[in-house]
């Protein structure tokens, strides 16, 4: 058995597209620009990053759906380009969202079909499907058509499908996207149980709490490269020497955000929209009190609660990602 479940060295992927016939324009996008990582057997590893950072492309390079433009990757010691079938026998792939299932078939039929495809022996199929339906709590609804399932139920069925052939490595690409909090908690429990049984899991997510709760190690990817890698505790150090001010506001614009970002001592400033309100988060040097200056910059904006606190893993993540963005992009408000 290979020492590492996942190994990637200098992994790169460029997407090329062409538009127009008379005056064709070629476009190249470098989605992954040299990713190196190793994940041990039985490890639960998180890959975090903003939209377009290269998370899904990295997963698709590792699970054989894409061929790398450069670099190498091995799963359980098998090369993802040359030993595709060996790799596929050992991996499961689950992605978030509504797609990826046969909606007009029942959960049982979906699982039966994928069991055949993934080579689960006929005599074992019935037992395995029943076992997985129990695991993802879909027993009793297995004969209903998938089109009538909620997002959470579909997501659980996705997981069952990914586990049919007892993969040694499971790729979970944002499995909790759009899932309600209760279903997301159940999903986290399922993932944790899997890791406890020795399955190696590579999880991509936007949710910091999810990564913090589940993952032994986390890699933060932005702009196609890994910007930081370590345990959640190690990553928190990226926000060392900082303090955080959170202001609930209604109507903060890009101009005000730019002013706040330019204030002395301010390291990061971002706005997240939550329902009708916005939450302005300002990270500053620990020794500098920026609260008065920030409130002055927000003159005329209706404000709610103002809180000063110590940095969390999420703040460390924002610090890492913004460090990359600052080199390429202007500061802007982000809606979630």
């Amino acid at each position, binding site marked *: 058995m290979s020492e590492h479940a996942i190994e990637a060295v200098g992994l790169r992927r460029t997407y090329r597209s062409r538009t127009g016939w008379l005056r064709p324009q070629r476009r190249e996008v470098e989605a992954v620009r040299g990713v190196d990582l190793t994940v041990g057997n039985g490890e639960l590893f998180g890959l975090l990053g903003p939209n377009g950072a290269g998370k899904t492309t990295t997963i698709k390079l590792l699970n054989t759906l894409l061929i790398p433009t450069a670099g190498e990757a091995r799963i359980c010691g098998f090369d993802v380009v040359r030993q595709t079938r060996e790799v596929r026998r050992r991996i499961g792939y689950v992605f978030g969202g509504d*797609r990826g299932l*046969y909606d*007009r078939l029942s959960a049982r039929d979906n699982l039966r079909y994928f069991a055949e*495809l*993934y080579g689960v022996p006929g005599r074992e199929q019935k037992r395995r499907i029943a076992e997985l339906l129990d695991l993802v709590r879909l027993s009793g609804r297995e004969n209903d058509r998938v089109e009538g399932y909620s997002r959470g139920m579909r997501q659980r069925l996705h997981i069952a499908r990914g586990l049919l052939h007892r993969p040694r490595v499971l790729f979970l690409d944002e499995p909790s996207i759009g899932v309600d909090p209760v279903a997301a908690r159940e999903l986290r429990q399922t993932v944790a149980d899997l890791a406890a049984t020795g399955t190696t899991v590579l999880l991509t997510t936007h949710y910091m709490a999810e990564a913090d709760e589940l993952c032994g190690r986390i890699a933060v990817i932005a702009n196609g490269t890994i910007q930081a890698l370590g345990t959640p505790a190690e990553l928190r150090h990226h926000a060392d020497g900082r303090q955080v001010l959170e202001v609930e506001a209604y109507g903060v614009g890009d101009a005000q955000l730019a002013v706040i970002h330019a204030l002395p001592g301010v390291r990061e400033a971002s706005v997240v929209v939550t329902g009708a309100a916005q939450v302005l988060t300002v990270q500053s040097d620990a020794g500098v009190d920026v609260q008065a200056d920030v409130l002055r910059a927000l003159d005329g904006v209706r404000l709610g609660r103002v809180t000063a606190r110590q940095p969390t893993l999420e703040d460390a993540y924002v610090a890492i990602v913004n460090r990359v963005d600052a080199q390429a992009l202007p500061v802007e408000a982000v809606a979630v």
Partner: protein
Amino acid sequence: MIAVGALLHAKQLSRSPFEIATALIVPVVQATLAVYLFRAGGEPGRLLEAAVGAGLMGVWSSVLFGSGGAIQNQRWQGTLEMIMLAPRPPALVVLPITLATALTGTYAMVATLAWGRLLYGIPLTFAHPLAFAVAVPGCIIGLGMFGLLLASTFVLLRNANALTNTLEYPIWLVSGMLVPITALPGWTGPIAAVLPTTWGARAVREAATGSGPTWPSLGICLAISLACLALGAIMMTHVERRARAAATLALA
């Protein structure tokens, strides 16, 4: 795996409201088209041949849209990546889909004949009923294998629909499903000769009308189809790799 896959894909296809509506309307349209075409040509005695030809058009449409459309549907559903990720030869993964579409195409044949009987009183008296009963499934299986060859190109193309639409009418025209090949320009002859659809249509027609021995045509249809299957399997492996390089398995 092929049997279970074909069955479940047929189940998924037959539950689509679009497929159901198409299956209800198209055979009526095609039966009407065929009947009036032959009546206008002053050959009312060949109405059964017309109905069988129209039924075959339905089977071909089903296979073509099944192969092209099903691959595109799989892409839209997000299942194309999932099935291509299976540790199986890509051809084995796609073959059940094309067979399923051929199976649903059988319905097109039956429905066209039934509508022809009901609406236009076409007598369903086959010259060789047993040969007809063998030729129709043989032809359908042959077309399913041909569909695999087509499907290999659809895996590569994100806009597979464009190619599907372009191929529908020329193929049934050149294959002589409705209009005799002899009525077409000479240059279409060699194209017709290599298409399994031509021989399949001929076999079914021969069985229905007794215009010739069914088995040689059916044999040639299946032989060409097997060649298509072999070529399709090789192409599918090549195309799957190219699709992974070009990132066309997913929508974006």
